[in-house]
């Protein structure tokens, strides 16, 4: 049997973490919003949908520690591990994106659950064609997954202190960048650029950062020991 497929199968053996838990979290957030919405009787716009996206970041971090040492010691190549894990994240993201889109349709069709709760159908985020929405959901999930995956890969390669070091350097770089932006009074043009850019264009820029994450995590895992 193809080893990449074997790795996907190994990941999905843990159905609870990959398929069930994110929807339990999203579901509880939705339920709470539904209760509050029906109590106050006002229109609610909430960011509860973010939980399922943040969850991708978390599983990106956690899954490496759980499965990398196990699978490498079972004779999987690092390359197979990388592609198998990528395929798993992609499968889960596609499935989640489709589900989110469908529930969004239901939300719109039921006049936002009859109480004006905007949970899945959020303006700006859900602007555009269904296909564009799918792409947006998918891209954001993959981006966050690989962000977490890269953090875990850094940890695998350079250990705890190395990871601290990377974060210190990153914090310094961001602080300098913020300082320079403020110094040259550049905040307004930057905000204007964001305001003037559609969500689809933003997501395409996100793709660039996803590709950087992918290249980084691949390079790091290829050199990581268990």
């Amino acid at each position, binding site marked *: 049997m193809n080893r990449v497929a*074997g790795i996907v*199968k*190994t990941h999905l053996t843990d159905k609870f973490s990959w398929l069930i838990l994110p929807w339990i979290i999203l579901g509880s957030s939705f339920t709470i919003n539904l209760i509050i919405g029906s109590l106050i009787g006002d229109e609610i716009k909430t960011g509860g949908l973010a939980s399922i996206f943040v969850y991708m970041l978390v599983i990106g971090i956690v899954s490496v520690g759980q499965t990398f040492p*196990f699978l490498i*010691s079972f004779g999987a*190549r690092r390359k197979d591990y990388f592609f198998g894990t990528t395929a798993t994240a992609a499968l889960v993201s596609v499935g989640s994106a489709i589900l989110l889109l469908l529930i969004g349709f239901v939300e719109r069709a039921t006049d936002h659950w009859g109480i004006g709760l905007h949970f899945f159908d959020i303006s700006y985020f859900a602007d555009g064609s269904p296909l564009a929405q799918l792409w947006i959901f998918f891209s954001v999930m993959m981006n966050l997954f690989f962000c977490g995956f890269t953090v875990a890969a850094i940890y695998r390669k350079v250990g705890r202190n190395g990871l601290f070091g990377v974060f210190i350097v990153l914090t310094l770089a961001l602080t300098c960048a913020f300082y320079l932006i403020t110094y040259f009074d550049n905040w307004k043009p930057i905000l204007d650029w964001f305001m003037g850019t559609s969500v689809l264009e933003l997501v395409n820029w996100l793709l660039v950062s996803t590709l950087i994450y992918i290249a980084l995590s691949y390079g790091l895992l290829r050199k990581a*020991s268990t």
Partner: protein
Amino acid sequence: MTTIVEVKGLSKHYGKVKAVDNVSFKLEEGKIYGLLGRNGAGKTTIMHMLTAQLFRTSGEMKVFGEEPYENEKVLKQICFIKESQKYPETFRVKDVLNVSPLFFPNWDKELAQSLVEDFRLPLKRRMKKLSRGMLSAVGIVVGLASRAPLTIFDEPYLGLDAVARNLFYDRLLADYGEHPRTIILSTHLIDEVSQLLEHVLVIDAGKLLLDEEAETLRGSASNVVGSAAKVDAFLAGKKVIHRSPFGGLMSATVLGQLSKQERLLAAEQGLEIGPVSLQQMIVHMTGSNGNNEEAAQ
């Protein structure tokens, strides 16, 4: 005989610490090897490098004639069960057994099932809830049922009771008889496995101390006991790896076969000569004063 593993000048350094220092050896197809040595001698590090889980500092290494790193052809022929084998936290025993055939092409499901029964493993229990002995038993099941051409067990029976250990030896020998393969047993329970081993490698402080057929090794040392002065005289010119004086008596371990003449001489002097077990020999060779003794001779 086909050479399966060939290692030349293999080293792994962590800063100034030489975990493995210039080790060279060859392993042949269809034998049971013992990789013996004290804790921290470098056994596990060597096995990690053989299976491309750890990167070497220097040296050459060929497994099945090729470099093992990221080499699917090589890696799928190896099954390495670590003492500290990690499993995903959510996995149950049966999840591990379901996933194993995806990575070990020769996996024998029936063998795995019968081993699970023999070791009385609870299939539905989570790996992280297993006792140390049960964890070892899962490793043994995977290691045997994988029937990998190169199977490596690193301290396979930590926490196992005597019955389970015997079960392991029996099943290993039975399956090895039917499906010959190369097996490496790394352990410090030397006496228990000494009958299984066909070839012995001894590692101490990162260096290869001994690389010898078990058969040759068994007759290659003797214990001499008698009055201190007489033992000393008898030992002159021989390679002594251990001495322990006891009052006016002395017990010493000598390397090398004793000739018939020497045995007669010993008998005349009232010295007793006895066999030395593999374990005793290795204890003397790798014990902290073993090396000093040898240097002093």
